[in-house]
């Protein structure tokens, strides 16, 4: 296990997490499409087959329901499978297995059958991908009781969230923001923190709170930086764990500023962003000087590359929403 703090990209941090988990626990198995010799189309599983052998990290036939369904069986039988869905939209063929089995097996069996498994889903846009490669599909999973759903926004969180996800006795849908794969940052793998279920304040601020997760956190931080120059102090909360949700941290942040904007890339309708607005409003109503605003993707299929920038929450759009938080009167 690496113990030093090193600069790693999120892809490298995820690879390190898999490597460390496989070293520590021989019941951890990694499989999916192209995760073997190729190391995955994003190289997250790079070198694992070479290091741990073909049994521990292997390619499957091309069938996502098969991958998840087989993982269910292996998890029933003492393993901790970590499977990769190649892209967000290519996890949909596995939806029945995820909704009807992965999510429900513990409950169906009165707690007798646990499914300690992780489904890794590279998701969201920002990389100029063609259709079916850029969906923000987190709401489908977050709405499904029984699933833990997390999404990192930094290499360090990627490492620790994945380690904890693999250690969890519950199934975890692990959403990886593709556009953050290559950005490097400090990761001290020897300084663990338990991030599942815990939001984190990424930047303090006093005037309004930006609530973001995954691919939108960096945009929110940028917006906060610019707002600072314009004399407005924005707090940024990284939700990190969509299920369970950290009401305490998020609500404390919102109450401290009285104004909030939720930022998420997914289409807004019936989304995780809707949920955050709803629960923050329910819990912090009398602290709110303005309705909580959303900056989300439009309710359209993910656009072609040349138009994708209009779908992604932008710094300007976030700042516009902040401007809209009824600063004058009320």
């Amino acid at each position: 296990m690496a113990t030093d703090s090193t600069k790693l990209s999120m892809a490298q941090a995820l690879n390190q997490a898999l490597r460390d988990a496989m070293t520590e626990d021989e019941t951890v198995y990694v499989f999916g499409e192209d995760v073997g010799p190729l190391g995955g189309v994003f190289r997250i599983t790079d070198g694992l087959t070479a290091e741990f052998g073909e049994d521990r990290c292997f390619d499957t036939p091309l069938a996502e329901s098969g991958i998840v369904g087989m993982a269910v069986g292996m998890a029933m039988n003492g393993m901790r499978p970590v499977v990769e869905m190649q892209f967000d939209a290519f996890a949909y063929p596995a939806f029945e297995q995820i909704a009807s089995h992965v999510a429900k097996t513990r409950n169906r069996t009165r707690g007798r059958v646990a499914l300690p498994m992780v489904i890794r889903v590279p998701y969201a846009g920002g990389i100029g991908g063609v259709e079916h490669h850029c969906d923000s599909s987190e709401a489908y999973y977050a709405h499904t009781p029984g699933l833990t759903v997390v999404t990192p926004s930094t290499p360090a969180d990627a490492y620790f969230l994945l380690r904890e996800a693999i250690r969890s006795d519950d199934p975890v849908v692990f959403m990886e923001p593709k556009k953050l794969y290559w950005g490097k940052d400090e990761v001290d793998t020897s300084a663990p923190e338990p991030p599942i279920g815990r939001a984190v304040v990424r930047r303090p601020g006093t005037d309004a709170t930006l609530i973001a997760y995954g691919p939108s956190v960096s945009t929110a931080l940028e917006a906060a930086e610019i707002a600072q120059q314009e004399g407005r102090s924005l707090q940024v909360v990284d939700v990190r764990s969509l299920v369970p949700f950290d009401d305490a941290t998020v609500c404390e942040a919102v109450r401290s500023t009285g104004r909030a904007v939720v930022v998420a890339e997914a289409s807004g309708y019936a989304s995780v962003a809707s949920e955050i607005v709803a629960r923050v409003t329910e819990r912090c109503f009398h602290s709110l000087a303005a309705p909580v605003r959303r900056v989300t993707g439009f309710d359209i299929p993910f656009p072609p590359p040349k138009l994708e920038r209009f779908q992604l929450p932008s710094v300007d759009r976030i700042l516009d929403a902040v401007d809209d938080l009824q600063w004058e009167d009320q």
Partner: protein
Amino acid sequence: MADDRDLLPSEQPVQLLDETGSPVAGAALPFPDSERLLAAYTSLVIGRRVNDQASALVRQGRLAVYPSSHGQEACQTGAAMALAEGDWLFPTYRDTAAVVARGVDPVEVLTLLKGDWHAGYDPYAHRVAPQATPLATQLLHAVGVAHAARLRGEDTVVMALCGDGATSEGDFHEALNFAAVFKAPVVFFVQNNEYAISVPLARQTAAPSLAHKGVGYGMKGERVDGNDTPAVLAVLDRAMAAARAGEGPQLVEAHTYRMQPHTNADDASRYRSQEEVDPWEARDPLLRMETYLKRKRVLTKARIAQITEKAEAVAAAMREGIAKDTDPEPAELFAHVYSTPTPQLDEQAAFLADELSREGTN
């Protein structure tokens, strides 16, 4: 590829005992010995009793619904008896008799249909997966269990059950293919009872038989008379042995018939005639075994009385168990969703507890 013809199933389903209860001459497989057949007969009788008792409990309003395998007990018995202790069974909603034959308490099995909870038994106790409702999905779990066992070097074989209708689902395909590619020790045992609710086999496939589906996975398909207990036993024994020996997954199709409606809620007269059903009465698996075993003088009147008594005791225990008030606590709703309830669930549990306490004081 010179031997791809070997993948084709036999032209006729394997039969060891014909419809009159007489051994078939020149049968392809050895006849199981009398001891095994007597055990099988006992299991058939109990299976039938379990089926009919459960149906009666539905009529009495004590169970919501019951998909009976009445008439398919040879398959149910065979599926359970083919297993060694360390093996796994992956049953469907219709396979209660097999689950019971494997050793699970029928009352626990019926928890689902009594409405107390979903899967009512401990899957690890007898290595029986929860009865699957979403069709064909369990076949993939079976492959996973088998693959995990193989990776650990265990000699576990997994028996995965499904119906004719379920073979049309994508998961059927993916399961057989994964099993074949990974040489997972799974026996896929399809009970072709000619109907998927109202839909007849002809609407399900244009293949000469369901066993032919093995060919596309490089898996030999085998056909068996599903109402012929010795044949089912012999074919499944051979399939289990092959899977255990590392020959990879096996596909067995049993030709049988769903004697009753899909469930009590179904009206079979809308889609099939009594004339179609009638001839199957004569092919009843119990009858056939009884005739044979009586003729062989293995089955005496005293033995029959013993077995009937045993079956009645099972039925009585079912009635008693089902009559018991086993209402689950509302708090259990939140107990098993995660290993530890989330803060959100704790909140919701508290909300419900408060609501109930206020209800109580009203």
